[in-house]
Structure formats: C-alpha cells, structure tokens
C-alpha cells in the first residue's frame, strides 16, 4: 500500500478579459478496487460563483464551476491524496480463453455483463477500426487465455509504436495512429480499445497520473510529472484489469486513476466555454509524490 499525493495545476492566460466562463472538470480521483481517495480539493482562482460536484454516468467525480467576474488569468489546482495498491492477478496462462469472456458479455444473461456492453461499442473518439481489430487479433489467437493475450497485445503496442509527442494533436484518429505507428499515451489507449472492442470485448479508457522517479542520484524536478492515460479490459470473474501500453506494465503503485470512460472525451480533465478572452496560453504542471506515514 502506497500513499501518493498529486497536485495538478492548470493555468490559462488570456490576452483579453474573459467575462464569463463555464467549466467541467474531471480532476478528483475516483474510488477503485485498488485505490482509495483520502482527500481531494479543488482551488479555483478567481473565485467561482458556482462550484458543484456530481457523479457522472461512469461514477466519476465531476466538478462544474462558473466564474462570473472579469478575469485575465484562470488557475485551477487539484490536490489529492490517494492510497494505491497493486492488483493481485492470477497466472496469465490460467485465465479463461478470451472467447469465453466475449461470449459471456453477449449472452445477455448477467446484469453485470449487460451493464458493461456500453464498453463494447464504438464511441466518439474510438470508431471500430478494422486495422486496429486485425492488429489486436494477432495477440488474441484462438483459445488463448485472455490475460496472456492482453499482456502480449500491450507489449506489442509498446515495442511496435513510437512514443512521439510531436505527432499527436488534440485527438488523433485511431486510423492515423495505426497507419503511422506512433502517438502518445492517449493514442495508444484509444488504439488498444478500438482493437479489443473490434473483437467483441469490453474495454475502457482510464485517465490519471503516473509517478515518475528521477534517475538514480538526481533530485526530482518540480512539475515534471504529467497526466497519463491507459486502458482497462473486462475479464469475467476478475473485473476490470488495467494495462499501460505506454510503459508496458500493469498499473500498480505508481498509477493514480482519476476517471474512467468510453474514451478521452468522457473524462477530459478540463473543458470549458468562455466569453471573450481572445488568444490564450496554457500552462500545466503536475507533481506526484510519495507521502511518508
């Protein structure tokens, strides 16, 4: 069990004053089987006229706020403390064949499976791309144990796709990521989800943070961490199991989950509509640190 503290600052500098701004943020960590959120606060400057929290369709914590005073700078800081632990997974080779998982979903007998069907469908940013399905099918061979297949799939993405922050735009279509074999964590997650859904499996998008460790002997730089994204696969009897294809590992004690959804669009950390403002500059700083008890 590890205790992590994350601080996520988002700052907009506008050239002209903004008279009114509405915003929806997914910044407070949700509860998960392997994560407990101990505390989470949201600091908004200038002070919002309205600030409310609700739970969305996917049981994420969502905050809506609106700022009604004229401002040139908007600063939102989320500070949270969570306890995370690594999941205990069975031997990959002993998990059921992936087709069993698929059929279990589509039999329409178990409410829990029916409820997960939403994650088998195309979603706004994850169309059912044929190339992605075929790419996934190379790992999901006939009768292969599902955990083993998923591990292999994750590893192939890690080895065969280049991590390239220059390539990705706000949301690079899955087809483009497939064609160029490059992207960032968000793109890898989307592509993996497209492949798994193409096979009839339930896969979802996870947005959160990753603790980075400085090279041995060096001091960790402030603001050097970042928001992160990975995917999750539904395995009957086991539940949702996370995979981080960007780092080729199963998230454990370094990952903090903020929100889950069908794709990035459901869990965008911060979105907003503002009146006025002109051009703007965006600054983001994330720090993840261990809290010693």
């Amino acid at each position: 069990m590890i205790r992590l503290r994350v601080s996520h600052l988002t700052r907009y500098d506008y050239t002209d004053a903004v008279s009114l701004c509405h915003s929806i943020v997914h910044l407070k960590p949700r509860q998960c089987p392997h994560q407990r959120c101990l505390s989470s606060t949201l600091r908004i400057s200038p002070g919002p006229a309205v600030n409310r929290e609700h739970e969305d369709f996917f049981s994420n914590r969502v905050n809506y706020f609106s700022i009604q005073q004229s401002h040139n700078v908007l600063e939102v800081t989320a500070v949270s403390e969570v306890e995370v632990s690594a999941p205990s997974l069975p031997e990959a080779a002993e998990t059921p064949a992936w087709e069993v998982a698929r059929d279990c979903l589509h039999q329409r007998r178990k409410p829990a499976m029916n409820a997960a069907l939403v994650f088998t469908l195309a979603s706004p940013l994850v169309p059912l791309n044929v190339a992605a399905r075929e790419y996934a099918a190379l790992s999901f061979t006939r009768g292969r144990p599902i955990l083993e297949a998923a591990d292999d799939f994750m590893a192939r993405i890690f080895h065969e796709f280049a991590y390239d922050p220059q390539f990705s735009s706000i949301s690079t279509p899955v087809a483009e990521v497939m064609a160029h074999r490059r992207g960032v964590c968000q793109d890898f997650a989307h592509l993996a989800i497209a492949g798994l859904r193409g096979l009839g499996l339930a896969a979802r998008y996870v947005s959160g943070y990753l603790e980075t460790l400085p090279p041995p002997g060096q001091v960790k730089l402030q603001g050097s961490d970042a928001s992160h994204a990975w995917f999750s696969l539904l395995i009957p009897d086991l539940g949702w199991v996370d995979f981080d294809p960007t780092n080729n590992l199963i998230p454990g004690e370094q990952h903090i989950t903020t929100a889950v959804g069908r794709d990035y669009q459901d869990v965008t950390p911060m979105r907003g509509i503002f009146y006025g403002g002109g051009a703007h500059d965006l600054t983001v700083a994330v720090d993840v640190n261990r809290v010693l008890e």
Partner: protein
Amino acid sequence: MSVPNLAAALARPGLIDDYVPIPGCFDEMRPAQGQVRPQWRYVLESLRTLGPAGIAERGREAARMFRDNGVTYNLNGDPQGMSRPWELDLLPLLIRSEEWAELERGLMQRAELFNQILLDLYGPRELINRGLLPAELIDGYREYLFPCHGLEVARRRPLVNYAADLTRMPDGAWRVISDRTQSPLGAGYALENRVVLSRVMPSLFRDSHVHRQAGFFRAMRRTMTRLSPGRDGHARVVVLNPGPQSEGYFEHAYLANYLGYTLVQGGDLSVRDGALWLRTLGRLERIDAMLRRIDGSACDPLELSEDSNLGVPGLVEAVRAGNLVVANALGSGVLEHPGLMAFLPEACRHLLGEELLLRDIATWWCGEPKARAFVLENLDILAIKQAGKPPGQRGVFPASLEPHAREALIASIQAAPHRFVAQERIKPSTAPVLIGQRLEPRPITLRTFLCAEDEGYTVLPGGLGRVALTDDALLVGNQLGGLGKDAWVLASEPERQESLLVSGENQSPTVIQENEVSSRVADNLFWIGRYAERAEGLVRLLRMIIFKLSERIDVDTVPPAQVYLRSLLEALTQQTQSFPGFLGEGAEERLRDPLPELLSLIADPRRLGGLPQTLQALGNAAYSVRERLSVDTWRIVSDIESRLGALTSNPPTQPSQALDELDPLVTSLVAFSGLTQENMTRNEGWHFLETGRRLERGAALTALLRSTLTPLAPEQDETTLIEAVLGVTDSIITYRRRYHVGTRVGALLDLVLQDEGNPRALAYQLVALERLVTEMPKGELAVGRSLTQKLVLKTLTRVRLAELDTLVQPDPQSHRRLVLEQFLEELEADLAAISDALTAQYFRHEEQPHSLLRRIGVVK
C-alpha cells in the same frame, strides 16, 4: 389547392360510384365493397349543396388565409423554402368518437410507456441490465446523452410532448409508423388547419360537432407551469428554436405566441448562478422552463455536442441544479431510434405490467443475429431505415434499388448491424383527395399529439393529417411538407366553443402576459422600422422622378438632364447608395437616358440598395420577429412580399408600368406604418420600431435636402425641385396653405426642417426620438442622460437654433449653398452617431462563446 375541380367532380352524379378504393388498402371513406361510411355522408352532402362556385370560393378563401397568416413550411435545403405556402385539403379526415376513444387509450399508454422508459434509461437502466433493451441500440445512438444520466426530472415527467405517426392496416387497425419524442413538430400546423377550415366551412364545422383543440394547448400551459421550479406559480417559459431559417420556424413562432411564451434563440440566453437567464434590454430575466425546439444534443456546447451554436453553455448544469425545467427532458430523442419498436411489447409488460394496446408496424432490429438473418433473407419485402440519418433520408426499399446499391446496403448492414432497422412494407390506409378531375384515394398518415397532464396524458383530438404525395406512406416519415388534412373527431354531443384567450374556467390567465423583448428582437424591430421607412421614402422618390421624367418626355423640347432632374437623380443614387449611378463613373451617360438605371433600381433583385432588396430586408426582419406582429400587420407583410414577387418576376419596361407597380406599394407601406402605430402596444418593442422609423426618416430627409437644395438652380428649376421635395415628403398641401406666394427655399426649410408640428419634418423626428430614447429601459445603475439621449438632444438643439436666412445664402463663387451643405452634412453625421450609440447600448450581443483548448498535457 385545386378545388374548382372538386366542385366539378362533386356535381357529377355517380361521383361516389367513381371512387374506387385501392385494392387491399383500408379506405377511410368507403370499404372496397359497399357504401360510403355513414360519418362521411354529411360532409359530402354539404359540399354538394355548396355547389361548384361555392367550393371554389372556399378554396380561394382558405388559400388566402394561409398566405395572409404567413403559414409556411421550410423544407430542409430548399432555398425557396421560406415562402413555401402550407396547403390544405378542404376535405377533412373524419374519425368517429368511439373509434377515437379506443385509439386514445392506446396512445396514452404508449406515452406513459415512453415516459417510463426514459426514466429508466437515464436512471437505473434496468431495461438494459436485464437484457430487455439492447445496449447497442441505446448507448450506440447519438441522442442517448450520457451527461444527462442521473439528472433529476421534474415530477418524473421527462416526456412532456409526444407525437405518433399512424396509419391503418387493411383491416382498419391503427398502427404506429414512427414516434416523435425529441420535440414533436406539427401541433401548431394542426391548429392552424383547424382555424382555417372552421372559418372557411363554418356551418359544416358547427353541425359536425367536432372535438375542439384549445383544451390541449391549455393543458400544455398548465403542465409547463406545474413542472417549473416553484416560484409563486408564475412560470417564465421560453421556446428555444434554431431561428428563422429552420424547418418549422412558422410553428415555433406560432406556438410561442399562442401559448404566450417568449420565442428565443441560444444567443438570447445565458447561464449564470446555475440558472438560465434571458438577455433583455439592459437586464437579465430569470427563466424557469424551456420548451425546446432543437435536438437535445445541441442544447449545451459545454456538456453535449460542442460544435453546436444553437444551445446555451451551462444549460445541463442549470437543469442538474434544479433551477430549470426543459421539456422534453434532454435526451428524450433516444426514443426516436426506429429499432426501439421491436422491443416495446416486452418493455410494456415489464414497466407497466400491461399488454401494448397500440401496435407498431412489424419491426426488426438488425443488431440481433436472428432478426438480421431474417432481414437479409427477406430484403425485398421490407423497408430499411437507418438510425441517426437526417430526416427524409431515412428509408429505402431494397426491392427498388439498383443491384450495386443493394449490395452496398447489405454490406453496410453487415458492417454496423445495430444501426439498421427493417420494417414491413405495409399498404397504408387511404382517404379521398382530389387528383385532377376526380376524387381519388391517396395514402394518408395521421400525426397525433399528446401532452403530459397531472395524471397521465391528454391527446389532441384529431391531429395533423398528411397526404403522401408518393405512394408510400412509410417514407412520409419526418417532414411535414406536402398536402395537409385536418382531422375531425366527430363528437356525439355538441362541444363548447373555447379558445386560449377567452377561458371560462380559471385554468389559465385570461390575459397572456407581455413577454420579454430580447436584444435580438429589439434589434430586428428597430430595423423593421428603418426598412419600412426606407422603402416608403424610396418608392415616393422613384415615383416623383418617373413622374417628372414623363413630363419631360411629353414635352420633348427641353434639353436633357435639366438641373432639377439631375438633382433628383443624384438624390436617388445617394439615398440608395447605388454608386456609381448618377454620381460616379458613367453618370453623364446615365443622366442622358436615366430609364434603364431607374428600372433596375425598381425591379432588379440583385441591385444593392435597390427597391427589391430593401423590401426583402423588411420581409426578413419581419419574419424574424413574426410572433410580435399582429395578424393584420402580417397580412400587409405578405402583401408587400407578393407585390415584390410580381415586380421582380415581371419587371416593368415602361415608366407608366412602373408607376402602376409603385402606387399600390406606397399604399401597402403606409398601411404597414399605420398598423404598427395603431395595433402595437406601446411596449419596449414598439419603442425600437418607432425609433428606427424616426431615425430613417430624418436621415433620408437630410440626404434629400442636401442633394436637391445645395446646388443653385435657375429659378424655374428651383421651383420644380421644391415641388418635388414637397411631393416626396408629402407636404405639398400644408405648404400651399401656409405660404401663398410661390415657392421658396427658405419656406421649404421652415416646413421640412424646423417645423416640429409637421410629421414629415426633421425637427418632428428629433422631438419624437428624444421622447422615445428617454422612455427606453436603462441599466439600474445608469445616472443622468445616456449617450444616445445626449446625441439626440444635441442634434435637436442644432436644428432648433439654425438660422434659416443664413443657411439659404448662396456662395457666388461655387454656385452652391455652402452653409446649408455643411449644416446638412453635420446633421447626417449626428444621425449616424445616434444609430451607433443605440446599437452599442442595446443590440450589442455578448461576445461569442469559445471552447477552451481541451487538451491538457498528455505526456508519459
């Protein structure tokens, strides 16, 4: 409406014998074998009594009423859509009371069922978790709005308004073709059909004991009030619509007006403090409830479709916070997925514990393997619909497709089966319609309307009948164009006369509250005032010029382009801003033969600043605020539009012809001004219209005086010019009465510049403006005079203090009245500044909303 033929047909003996129902179809009037159904006898008999001439007359009357009331239907993608008139068959569809009662029960059950389904889908989702509804069908459909899951629904009524399109099977049983749960359109057209038909056929209508409709609309008002978050039972309701270009704009405006609600667009609204506000002049007005006439997904760019500019950012949160009720609830559009029909019987048993009373035409959802296999094997006897396609492009018949298109369809079904739905090809019921010389059976569908009540639902008696112009009623689908039919439910007992305005019971207020004037509406009214005045002034000037031109042609001895004529032509170019015209390059040539340029300004719709464009601009502005204009005013607008149509489609080639066209236009424009004076309440809206008119009249007069009086002219010319100015300003009689001795520039200026008692004088306009701007709303913190007020005062003072003797002095060197010229130029600038100040104070719309760059650093 080709009614004369109907008369001829009815006059023939054996008319009914000639009417042969389509084999295998249910006919509303006559079974395949046998006599006309009893309920039709009286209507047919009445038409026969009316006689050919009488029926022709009623037909014209109905057409005229639709035209005068501006009842139009705007078909998607049709550039002429705005002026497409609504058409109505004089023969109503007749339904017996007992039969209707049964249908009503089925419809009410269906509405209740849909309401429950919505509560479930946006709540516990038991239907999906228990496997009664496939997740693919709901969650894969773009109108299932995830952000709206878990929203509190006022009084558990997400479905407030509902409509179902019906037809009948060959055995006479009613079947549902499609459901409208998003924001059902058509009740307003049904109401208008009824209003017109009952006026055109008063005695037939009275004697037939038809179920009335006003009760339904009262229920709508009651329900909106009841659903609104409790604030003294005084709900402020807006009707959110996409604007004048939209499909059903007529109806949005008509219903808003009928219900006494404010018609708004997204830009008129703003969310603050977690509540919805209407931006009116200088203040914000809290809104309790919204009748939405746009898709749910387009309502909030913050949480829903972010590329929509029809909605209001933050709207979903206002609903979430319980500060606003939206009807129908956001997300209700999901029920329009045609595949849902295949699952209704099961859902009905589960949710209501009842059997579904009103059945759908047989439907297969291709997302189910078994259904898909059946559909692919039986393609040619089915109609295929695709969920999420725009209205009108939904259905195809595989049997009539080219082989490659058929293959492509099969491939798309296999690729994304959950998007496709198949329905049996039914033989829709028919009703008598006149085609050519005969009464013929035509496929017909009936759109029925329901509204939530305290308990259950109420049904609009009858509904909107639609005659399918193609033979396939399945494809009539969504759009409302085509030929309409009123539907009469024949009561066994005579019904009380009722309407919303005069209500015997205390169920709704007898006087509908004045609704708020938004900045956009005020802006439009201001421009209606300006354009109406501009058009009138322009027509008067054109008429005067042509008149003078004709005199010249008659005499034929005078040299071309005398000074007076030149001045008038220059004034025309100036006033219409149609340079070069008679002022710039090529002016000399045009002055020698001014007729082509004149005729072009009169009739060419492409000429910027010309008469057709000015009238068109007036029509557009009027259309944008049509719910604010009285029926009579709207009739004049229609009248002006039809004159405009005649003018541009058949442009005059001779001066005399042009005069024939211009004379009645002046009359219409004067009538328009008169009606806005007499028939509009003196509210904020009227103030803006009147301000526009006064400002325009002042500006036009100033420009006219500058063009005509600044250059010095020979005495004879000057006299003619003064006469012309008096003619254009309609001041000749006053002038003659007041100044007996000839005509002089000084006297003219006295009358049209400084006389505060002459409604055509500049001073009069300024005095009126001063009063108008003083009475306009001001911000609560405003102290002293506004900029607009100061500018008006300054201009008025300038006019009052002007020394006419000095003004008329000519400058011997330049042969111009330089002092006058400068004075008038300054006045023109002043008037323009007043207009700008008003715009900045009242019409400046808030900045456009932008989306934050949504990407937050995505790094490993």
